[in-house]
Structure formats: structure tokens, C-alpha cells
């Protein structure tokens, strides 16, 4: 039975001004670290951790109100000149509370881990400043009850993602990856912005809770256009085909960043946006979401099978799992998608932290040069095993519950879709266990200084253990055993009991994938029958080259754009520069003429006048002797002369 998306009944609202503290704590940490980070040194990590932990505590305190069925909100007037009743603000319902919990809780764990992972980095405090800014932006995005406000957070997390991917900007690859991520997500953001404009001019409201009421009577073609534009934004952020190319490259950033931003939270923002804007989606646009999600799930999964860099395997696995969430969205089951987002955040952050621990210990991320690490790093091996099992959908672990919820939803709507998704599950189990087997089992390669490998410090192991507990048990909140509290929180319909056929099929998929990983991925045997080998090799080359998406972009978009810019620069130089320089020369000539006129005519008149006055004065001053008797003589002479004249 499809979950009716528009059926969210109005929740009673509680005004909770404390909401503002959730993003404010990390923001304060950011400001402090920005100005005093250098002086704080090692302490700066604890500033960031403390701030985020405070946000986490505030979030947990809010849980009671949210689970009691209230909508917590705080508003303040905004653009009241345009409409006197205009408000903007934060609000927390079940959906955003879940995201808040993921961001603050996993963020705190990862911040603790980073304090060990980043130790000794010359820009240690800068890292935590960016980290805090990211958390503040992400929490703003989640809390916003207004699409424009969400967009502000959306752009800020994009900025932080860029800053953190190219955190080691000395490496050209990191700088290029940051640029690529920024530009690629920009394509999606442009779509989202256009969607917002279209929404503003037609629906006329940006408040999520007013969407379902205000779309009544609008043509469905318009809604399809709006929702597809919003989906384009989600595609950019959540790395869906065809905008997925930035996420694997984003692995150039520090590993904790990959865990938090590029696995657990920011890339999930697209899924969250879709869940928020679900009332706007028409059946047609949901079809598009479904198709794009399915294509992403399968193609990224197959690429993950062929990658040899451990972080890139995890990156493609993230793309693939985000595709799975989009599939659930396309099936009009936002609660199921959000549940998978929730469990995925735990096990994928855990796997990334495990990979970071391996990289920290061996300074190596090439799969062929790793192996046998379980003896050196027993704790990392243990938590990675738990994370891998959870992701592959091991019975009664987190990944199992959320994946089975998606499979069940798929079976209810399109029975064939479940079989396709089971194929995806085989791939998931296969690539994650290939990674695990090659990394932790087998002989230790002696080619490099592997004997230096050691377990990571407790400050890194402890957060991994916490997340491992989450990866094992967090899914229970969506299991029928506990009455599916998460689905009630999201006001969605939940399955009453565990569905046995789906359980059996998904376990079969897990075992198949694990077996394939052992035989093909780890032992390197070729199971393909002889006649099919050339075709299989071509298929493998296709996947190993990531379906040539980067090359196609290079050929079709980047190079034409570059030649266009070259042509424009030539035009600039020839035509515009010529015009500007010509105007300059003409002005110069004219001014020369004017200068001559000034010098020959105007100056001469002025100077001549002054000269005349001066010479006249020189003559006249001779009369002024300063001797009084001479003046008197003139006076007497004049009187006598006048007297004579009068007499005449």
C-alpha cells in the first residue's frame, strides 16, 4: 500500500525558542576558532566537539515533545515590508528531528575521531573551524521551515564541502576535486533555484507545511516542472546520475570529512529535501526519481565492484545507497527512504572511519597493497566487520531493517522491482566484503613498510565503537519488534511483522554477494564461462572506467566550454580592447589639441592681463615714497592750483 504523502495531519505547534541554540553552538565554535584557533592549538578540537555535543543534548531534550506528537517551532518576522504577516523560522517535526539527531550525534562521534586523525596537521584548528561551520549550516538546513532558508543552509554546506575537500590544497588533486565538487553541485543548485522561482511565482508559499494546502487547483504539469527542478538540486547534492561525478573525487579530502559530509549528512540533504517537498511531487516526477535512483543504484554499485582505492569503493557505495534512497522516494515512501538514510548514516560513517583508521596506520589506500590487517588492528577489523555486515543487510542488523523496508515497498508496487533491487543487494554485499577481505584478511604484503601498522589511538577507536553499536542496533527503531517507532514519528504506515520471503531472499542475496566477494574478489578466480569472457572483459573495462562519464563530460561540456572561453577571450582582446584603446587614443589626441589652445590662447590672455596690471603697478608705486612731506606738498600745490582755478 503506498504511503499517502499528502496525508500528514496538522500537528499542534509548540513555540520553543531554544531551537535557535542547535545551530548557534557550532556557529559560536566556528567564530571562536576562526579568530582564536591558532592560539587554542590542540584545544580547538574540544571547542568543536563541545559545541556539537551541546547541540546534540538540545536535540535529545527536544525528543520528548517531538515523540509526543508536537511540532516545535520558533518564528521571527521576515520581509515584513512585503507582507506584514511574513515570518521565517525553525521548526522540528519527526523528519527534521531524525536528521538533527543524525547530524549532531554522528557529527560529535566524528569530531572526536578527527581530533585523533588530524593530530599534527598544520591547519588543525582551521579544520575544526570548517567542521563547525559545516555543522551549523547543516543544522540550519534541517531546521528551516522555509524553502529559501533551507537554500541558505544548502549553499553553505556546499561551500563547507568545497573548503573541506580541498583542505589539503597543496595537493593539486585535492584542489581540482574541490573545484569539481563545487561546479558540479552548482548545476543542481541552479535547478533548485529555478524551482524556487517557479514556486514563488505560482504556488506563492515557501513554508513546507503549507505546500499540501496551497497546491490545490494548480495544473499538474506545473507541479511536475517544479518538482523536477527541485529533484535536479537534490541530484547535485546527493550525487545522482548524471551529477554523481564529484563525489568519488571528493575523497581527496580528509577521511573524517568523507565520513560526515560525503557519506552521512550532506549528501543525504537531497533525500531530505525530497522528503520535505514531497507534496509537490506528481506521479510523473516520481517516475523520474525512481528511474534516476535505480540507474544510480545499479551503475554506481557496479563501478564500486571494480575500484581498487578503498575510499573510492566506499564513495561509489555511497552513491549507490543514495540511489537506493531515491528509489524509495520514487515509490512515494519518504519514511522508508529516511529510515534507510538513518541507518546508512551509521554504517557508512563507521566504514569511512574504519578506512580512515587503516589509512592513518598504513598511509596506503590501494587495495592490492593492503592485507592481513586484522592482526595489527583488531578493533578496526571488528568494527569494519560489523559495518560491512550491517550494510550488506545481515539479519537483524540496521541495514537489514531499512533495506527490507525498501524491498517490501517495492514488492507492493512493482514486483519486478524487488528482483532488480535484490541484484543491487548482491552487488552491495559483494563490493563491501571484497573491500573487507582484501583489507583485513590474507597475507600481509611485505612490499612496503606495513610492519609499522598499528592500532589507532583510543580517541579514534572509541567513536568507531559507538558507531558500531549504532550500525548494529540503530535499525531496531524501524523494526516491527519494537513497534516501528520511527515510522510513527514520520507519520507513515509501518509493516506489522517481519516478512519471511523477503527476509529469505535478502539473506540469500547477502550470502551470494559474500561468496562472490570471497571467490572472485579475494581469491581472484574467474567464474565466467569461456565463450562469454570477451564480453565480460569489455563490461569490466566499462565499469572500471566509470562508464566514461568523466570522459564524456570532458569531451561534450568542458572542452566546448573551454574553446568558447578562448574564443571569447580572443574577441575581448581584439574587439573590446581595440575599441577601448581606440577611444583612449582619440581622447588623448583631442586633449593634445585642447592643451595647445589653452597654452596659446587662454594662457596668453590671462597672463597678458596680469602682466599689464603688474607693470602699471610698478609705475604707480613710484609715487608712493612714504615721505609725508612730499604728500603734503602735493596737497598744498593742489589747493593752490584749485584756488587759482576758482579765482579764474
Amino acid at each position: 500500500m503506498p504511503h499517502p504523502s499528502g496525508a500528514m495531519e496538522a500537528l499542534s505547534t509548540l513555540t520553543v525558542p531554544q531551537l535557535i541554540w542547535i545551530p548557534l553552538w557550532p556557529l559560536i565554535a566556528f567564530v571562536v576558532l576562526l579568530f582564536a584557533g591558532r592560539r587554542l592549538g590542540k584545544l580547538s578540537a574540544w571547542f568543536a566537539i563541545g559545541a556539537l555535543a551541546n547541540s546534540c543534548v538540545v536535540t535529545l531534550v527536544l525528543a520528548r515533545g517531538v515523540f509526543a506528537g508536537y511540532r516545535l517551532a520558533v518564528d521571527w518576522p521576515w520581509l515584513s515590508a512585503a507582507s506584514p504577516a511574513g515570518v521565517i523560522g525553525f521548526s522540528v517535526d519527526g523528519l527534521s528531528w531524525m536528521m538533527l539527531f543524525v547530524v549532531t550525534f554522528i557529527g560529535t562521534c566524528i569530531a572526536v575521531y578527527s581530533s585523533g586523525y588530524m593530530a599534527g596537521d598544520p591547519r588543525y584548528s582551521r579544520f575544526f573551524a570548517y567542521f563547525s561551520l559545516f555543522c551549523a549550516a547543516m543544522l540550519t538546513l534541517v531546521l528551516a521551515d522555509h524553502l529559501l532558508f533551507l537554500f541558505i543552509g544548502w549553499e553553505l554546506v556546499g561551500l563547507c564541502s568545497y573548503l573541506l575537500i580541498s583542505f589539503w590544497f597543496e595537493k593539486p588533486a585535492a584542489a581540482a576535486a574541490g573545484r569539481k565538487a563545487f561546479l558540479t553541485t552548482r548545476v543542481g543548485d541552479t535547478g533548485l533555484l529555478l524551482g524556487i522561482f517557479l514556486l514563488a511565482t505560482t504556488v506563492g508559499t515557501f513554508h513546507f507545511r503549507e505546500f499540501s494546502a496551497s497546491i490545490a487547483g494548480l495544473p499538474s504539469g506545473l507541479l511536475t516542472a517544479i518538482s523536477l527542478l527541485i529533484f535536479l538540486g537534490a541530484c547535485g547534492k546527493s550525487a545522482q546520475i548524471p551529477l554523481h561525478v564529484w563525489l568519488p573525487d571528493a575523497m581527496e579530502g580528509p577521511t573524517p570529512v568523507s565520513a560526515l559530509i560525503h557519506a552521512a549528512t550532506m549528501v543525504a540533504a537531497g533525500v531530505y529535501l525530497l522528503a520535505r517537498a514531497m507534496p509537490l511531487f506528481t506521479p510523473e516526477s516520481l517516475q523520474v526519481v525512481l528511474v534516476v535512483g535505480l540507474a544510480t543504484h545499479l551503475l554506481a554499485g557496479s563501478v564500486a565492484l571494480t575500484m581498487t582505492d578503498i575510499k573510492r569503493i566506499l564513495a561509489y557505495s555511497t552513491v549507490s545507497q543514495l540511489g537506493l534512497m531515491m528509489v524509495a522516494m520514487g515509490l512515494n515512501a519518504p519514511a522508508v527512504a529516511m529510515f534507510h538514510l538513518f541507518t546508512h548514516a551509521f554504517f557508512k560513517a563507521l566504514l569511512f572511519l574504519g578506512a580512515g583508521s587503516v589509512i592513518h596506520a598504513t598511509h596506503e589506500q590501494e587495495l592490492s597493497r593492503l592485507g592481513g590487517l586484522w592482526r595489527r588492528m583488531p578493533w578496526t577489523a571488528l568494527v569494519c566487520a560489523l559495518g560491512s555486515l550491517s550494510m550488506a543487510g545481515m539479519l537483524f542488523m540496521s541495514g537489514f531493517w531499512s533495506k527490507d523496508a525498501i524491498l517490501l515497498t517495492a514488492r507492493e508496487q512493482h514486483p519486478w522491482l524487488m528482483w532488480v533491487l535484490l541484484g543491487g543487494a548482491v552487488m552491495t554485499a559483494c563490493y563491501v566484503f571484497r573491500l573487507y577481505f582484501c583489507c583485513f584478511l590474507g597475507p600481509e604484503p611485505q612490499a612496503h613498510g606495513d610492519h609499522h601498522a598499528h592500532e589507532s589511538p583510543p580517541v579514534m577507536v572509541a567513536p568507531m565503537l559507538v558507531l558500531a553499536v549504532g550500525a548494529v542496533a540503530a535499525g531496531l527503531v524501524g523494526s516491527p519488534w519494537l513497534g516501528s517507532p520511527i515510522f510513527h514519528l514520520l507519520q507513515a504506515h509501518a509493516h506489522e511483522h517481519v516478512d519471511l520471503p523477503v527476509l529469505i531472499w535478502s539473506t540469500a542475496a547477502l550470502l551470494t554477494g559474500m561468496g562472490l566477494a570471497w571467490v572472485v574478489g579475494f581469491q581472484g578466480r574467474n567464474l565466467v564461462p569461456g565463450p562469454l569472457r570477451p564480453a565480460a572483459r569489455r563490461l569490466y573495462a566499462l565499469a572500471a572506467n566509470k562508464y566514461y562519464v568523466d570522459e564524456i563530460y570532458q569531451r561534450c561540456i568542458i572542452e566546448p566550454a573551454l574553446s568558447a572561453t578562448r574564443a571569447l577571450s580572443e574577441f575581448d582582446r581584439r574587439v573590446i580592447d581595440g575599441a577601448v584603446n581606440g577611444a583612449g587614443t582619440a581622447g588623448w589626441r583631442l586633449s593634445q589639441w585642447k592643451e595647445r589652445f589653452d597654452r596659446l590662447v587662454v594662457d596668453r590672455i590671462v597672463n597678458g592681463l596680469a602682466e599689464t596690471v603688474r607693470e602699471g603697478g610698478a609705475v604707480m608705486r613710484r609715487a608712493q615714497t612714504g615721505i609725508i612731506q612730499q604728500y603734503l606738498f602735493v596737497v598744498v600745490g593742489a589747493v593752490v592750483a584749485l584756488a587759482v582755478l576758482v579765482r579764474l
Partner: protein
Amino acid sequence: MTGPLLLGVSNALFCLGVYGLLTRRHAIGLLLSVELMLNAAALNFVIFGRAYGDAQAQAFTLFIIALAACEAVVGLAIVVQLVRSANTILADQVDLLKG
């Protein structure tokens, strides 16, 4: 009669004053010349008052004598200042107004 003769005396007195004023270099001499001219004017008052039988002219003469005394005081004060500031008493050596 004695009228034209007396007028001649006062004229001569006045011309003597003007001449002294134009030719004297010493500042005190200039003051004395001015006194001469004033006295010529006072003599004229007396002569014409007597000729027309008018007592007011005598009164004017008295005024002129008082005025001359005042003028001498002011003039001497100027001369003292002149000596102090320009360190000379000769009028043709003071030419600050020269253009």
C-alpha cells in the same frame, strides 16, 4: 587802515607755517609749523570779528587756542612713539608707507 595790513600779517604767518611744514625735517619743527598755521587762522578770526563787530569770533579764537594745546599734546606723544619705534626724529627717514 590796519585791516589789510593785519590780514597780510596772518597770511604771511600761514605761508610761513606751510613753508615750515614742507621743508622742516625735524618732527618738533613740523609741530611748530602746524602751530603757526593754527595761529594764522586764529588771527584771521580776530581780524574779521573786529571788522564785523561779532563777539563769537573771539570765542572761536579761544577754542582754537585750546585745540592747539590738545593738538600739541597728541603730536608730542606721536613724536615720542616715533623716536621709540623708528629710533629717529627726522620725518624723511620714516618711509614705511613707501609703495
